[in-house]
């Protein structure tokens, strides 16, 4: 039988000293703010300092 390997639906990138970048086919559920969206590309805060969570707002640079 031919082996089936799933293709990646999305790419998750850890930006060094920066946010988490996600691109591709994904559904983002924000349980804290009770929001759901499926954008093509997103940057999520990893430092805890963003004033626009869950998104990165560049605060990690300060």
């Amino acid at each position, binding site marked *: 039988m031919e082996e089936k390997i799933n293709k990646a*639906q*999305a790419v998750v990138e*850890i930006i060094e000293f920066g946010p988490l970048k*996600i691109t591709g086919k994904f*559904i983002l*559920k924000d349980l804290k703010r009770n929001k759901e969206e499926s954008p093509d590309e997103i940057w999520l805060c990893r430092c*805890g300092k963003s004033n626009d969570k869950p998104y990165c707002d560049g605060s990690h640079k300060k």
Partner: protein
Amino acid sequence: MDKDDKHFSGGKRYRNKDITVYWKPSACVHASYCYRELIEVFDPSRRPWVDMEGSTTEKIIEVVNLCPTDALSWKYNDEEKNEDVRADQYNHVKFRRPELMQANNEANETAPVSVKVMIDGPIVIKGDFDMINGSNRKEVRDGLISICRCGVSDHQPFCDGRHRKTGFNG
């Protein structure tokens, strides 16, 4: 939207681990065999109206085979098993809707990756994705990872539960 209840070109489809049941609303004449025999699975007052976890695969096949039209049909998720199905399985797609025998790619289409932002906690990512960390690229399939969002994990980029101690609010 639940992936089991998505529209596709042939109507709607519902899956459990063994089989896929196809529903073609335009063909239904409301003969009502399905819900009289198995309301746990086929409940027209519920959305989605088909719950594949409501009974056993054997029972679902038996009841789908009672449908007098091609409104309900079924096939195994294991394509090899579909070749050997005999004619007493009246509503197998091979007899009812042969066009769906070729619908493999669509049936096997994988779900989008799930990204969950947990309350005052990490980002939990589930599914088939590639992960890039510096020069390292890893293919994660049917996987689950948890990424730190508070910045204090000792196990970066992953969550190690420290947000609970520091009282992360975000």
